[in-house]
């Protein structure tokens, strides 16, 4: 019986520094948890990409690389899906303030595509104010059948 069939649930939590190295760490943690339960390569890639984009937003835009601010990562993987929560300690963020990266006038903008990619790769995306300040993002991906 594979881990996916056994009903195993994996949870990981980490408090990470606001650095680009933390982006790599978060990807490793999240993808590692999902891989342990057996997922397709495509799912692995998409989870990794979504986590990286969220982490970059938290580190760069939320915490602005501050050595005094942390990024909070939680991962919960079941045989059917993975839920990832990433929270920063920044000043908060209004999703509606983002320009539409698919609008013709924005196609040549250098940045602003991270959330578009996250939504493309994950089945659920929720962004809200974190208790105590900052932004928290919750992602869910339902695993593909093998």
């Amino acid at each position, binding site marked *: 019986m594979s881990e996916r069939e056994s009903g195993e649930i994996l949870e990981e939590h980490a408090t990470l520094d606001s650095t*680009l190295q933390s*982006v790599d760490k978060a990807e490793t943690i999240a993808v590692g948890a999902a891989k342990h339960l057996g997922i397709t390569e495509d799912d692995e*890639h998409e989870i990794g*990409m979504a986590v*990286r*984009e969220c982490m*970059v937003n938290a580190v*760069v835009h939320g915490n602005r690389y501050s050595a005094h601010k942390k990024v909070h990562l939680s991962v919960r993987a079941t045989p059917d899906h993975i839920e990832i929560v990433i929270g920063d300690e920044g000043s908060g963020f209004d999703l509606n303030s983002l320009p539409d*990266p*698919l609008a013709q006038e924005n*196609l*040549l*903008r*250098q*940045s602003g*595509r*991270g959330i*578009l*990619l996250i939504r*493309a790769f994950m089945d659920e995306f929720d962004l809200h104010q974190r208790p105590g300040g900052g932004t928290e993002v919750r992602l869910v991906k339902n695993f593909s059948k093998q």
Partner: protein
Amino acid sequence: MSVKLGTRQVGDVTVIDAAGRITLGEGASAFRDLIRDLANKGSQKILLNLNEVSYIDSSGIGELVSGFTTITNHGGSLKLVGLSKRVKDLLQITKLYTVFEVFEDESAAVRSF
């Protein structure tokens, strides 16, 4: 692993061979610096070969766009060749397939300039 970038000439076309990951940080900035350098040296025809690029994030995509804009503003053109399915998917998701000319074959890409 960051990105490795090499250049070669095919006629008057400068081909950039990229390998590895083009992501926020070293990878994206190395690409940006190379494009700027080529633009300043007057390279008008640039073909970016992404055949060995295993991973590109939104920052990497941003540098491709920025490179495109830089070269176009200098009166030249930047085209793409050798995209993996994953990179093609990213260009589709971001609608950048409507911006870049993308080729499967290098010879055809070079002839198109």
